[in-house]
């Protein structure tokens, strides 16, 4: 269903000695102090750490929303540290899919059009957009909710729409930031099952969370603390 031939066969994410320092006036605040890791295609990894650990900064860097102060970052073979704003936007559009804690759907727009939004920015024609968005909604189990607006959907359904939107451009990596943070435990379970299912069908998933329950299904956990990777462990799935 996804992927097909990628440009390169190496790791989908390769980070080397990534440093990120924020400047507040004359004060320099280090957020990341040298992070390195590789992520292979098809992996399901959780990035964990307490607040202030630098995991949000790492997430922004992986998501190409920000540039590192130093170090190199290759995404799907592309050295993204050297790219300009528009090129980074293109990377976010084609290579990355974002899922946010707060769903962040467009309120006035129905589920189908929300899912089709990245295709719109990619310049896909309206018929093709609707066809692919409808197929993607079907894949997350919301084929019958296409014309509903976000306010007419439950939290779990809204997050499914957001996942469909993240996947519609067939990205190299699905990036989820506390995806169950706004959901009750029952709905969280359903959503985690969906992530697992997506990973089993070949999707590469990075999930940023502080909640061990949410990270349960990940086959690898990267722990961040004080701007450094303090543990990187693979585990058998339960």
């Amino acid at each position, binding site marked *: 269903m996804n992927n097909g031939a990628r440009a390169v066969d190496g790791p989908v994410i390769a980070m080397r000695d990534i440093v990120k320092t924020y400047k507040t006036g004359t004060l320099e605040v280090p957020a990341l102090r040298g992070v390195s890791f590789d992520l292979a295609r098809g992996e399901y990894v959780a990035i964990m750490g307490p607040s202030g650990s630098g995991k949000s900064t790492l997430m922004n860097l992986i998501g190409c929303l920000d540039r590192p102060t130093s170090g190199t970052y290759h995404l799907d073979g592309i050295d993204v540290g050297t790219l300009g704003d*528009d090129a980074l936007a293109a*990377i976010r559009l*084609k290579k990355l899919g974002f899922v946010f804690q707060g769903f962040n759907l467009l309120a006035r727009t129905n589920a189908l059009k929300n899912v089709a939004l990245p295709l719109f920015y990619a310049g896909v024609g309206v018929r093709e957009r609707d066809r692919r968005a409808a197929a993607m909604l079907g894949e997350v189990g919301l084929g019958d909710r296409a014309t509903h607006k976000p306010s007419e959907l439950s939290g779990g359904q809204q997050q499914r729409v957001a996942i469909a939107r993240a996947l519609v451009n067939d990205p190299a990596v699905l990036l989820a930031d506390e995806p169950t943070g706004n959901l009750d435990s029952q709905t969280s379970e359903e959503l985690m099952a969906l992530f697992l299912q997506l990973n089993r069908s070949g999707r590469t998933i990075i999930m940023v969370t502080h909640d061990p329950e949410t990270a349960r299904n990940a086959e690898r956990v990267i722990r961040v603390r004080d701007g450094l990777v303090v543990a990187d462990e693979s585990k058998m799935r339960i």
Partner: protein
Amino acid sequence: MLRQVGPFVGEAFGVLADNRTRSFLTILGLIIGVAAVIAIQILGKGMAGAVTGVLGSLNDRSFYLFPNQQQADFTKASFTVADIDKVHAAVPNIVVAFPAGYVARVVTAGHEHARLGISDASDVAFARVPLIFGRNLSHDDVASAAHVCVITNVAFKRLFPAGNDPVGSSLRIGERRYVVIGVEGPPTQGILPIKFGGDISIPYTTYEHDFLRSRPLFAAQFIVADVSQIAQTEAAVKAYLRTLKAGRSEYQTFDRKTFSSSIDGIFAALTLVVTLIGAVSLVVAGIGIMNIMLVSVTERTREIGVRKAIGATSFQVLAQFFIEALLLSLVGCGIGLVIGVGVGWLVDRFALVAISGVVPSLPWLQSIAIAVGFATIVTLVFGTYPAYRAARLDPIEALRYE
């Protein structure tokens, strides 16, 4: 390109519809400004049409000659029929020159009588009002100084209330009788109560003999052969007459173009003033639009963050907000256009037509051009900055915005 913009337009409509009251109040200034400018443009055109209608009786090929009124001894500048004849003989391009006379007398026809204006005319074809009875003055009438007259519809109604064909019956003015040879129909245009000449027209030769004799003249009428040379002819006539008076008197001429251009000047000034007021209200409206767009950008900071995270380029975000501002402006200018044309049309239809008899055509294309032009300018000037602010937002900051 259109495919890229289409969804933005739909989206923008949604945003504006969600904030209906706010959107309406935002564009109210634009509506008023555009409506005022367009209405005054249409009225200006209608006024020009009305003036043309009023001047319908004034021939393109004729001009009047007067002594200049700002001179020391006005009476010395008077001229005689003989002077006019000399001018006619000396200056080229003149077909006919004759005194422009007007006297008011009691005119009697049978038992009916009325005080009417009597003026002189030549046989050279004027763009006159069509006749309902009889014929116009002929060359023979002028050559033989015949006692004949053409009367206007006003005179006809006063003197022949029964409405029968009066051709062949005679009018008595003082001790003299004039045979009616023609009757003008009601004017089709130019009903303003300005008329050049009286209601009874007689050959100028007859007029010279009956009313003028050798009395001094203060006005003469000239008809030219080549209308494109009328200005040169007017200059030559003034120069010749000045020489004839040994340079002691000044003269002025007056043709249809002089008259209509002086009236046009008044309306042009009026149009300019209202257009300036309209322009001020458009600036105010533009600032309102900028303000509301900045509010909209702030309100939707998070949405902008999401769009950018998903992969929208800065230009695509810019385009979205720019199109929203453009749409706001276009809707405002569109409503202004309809109101402006409506008001202009109503005033034209019920006020100007009543006094001038001219039904002006609505300048649709010009009005639409004004509305679209204003919308574009307002958007360019006041919509760019908010859209630029939106485009420049940092996605991380924007996503964190509550």
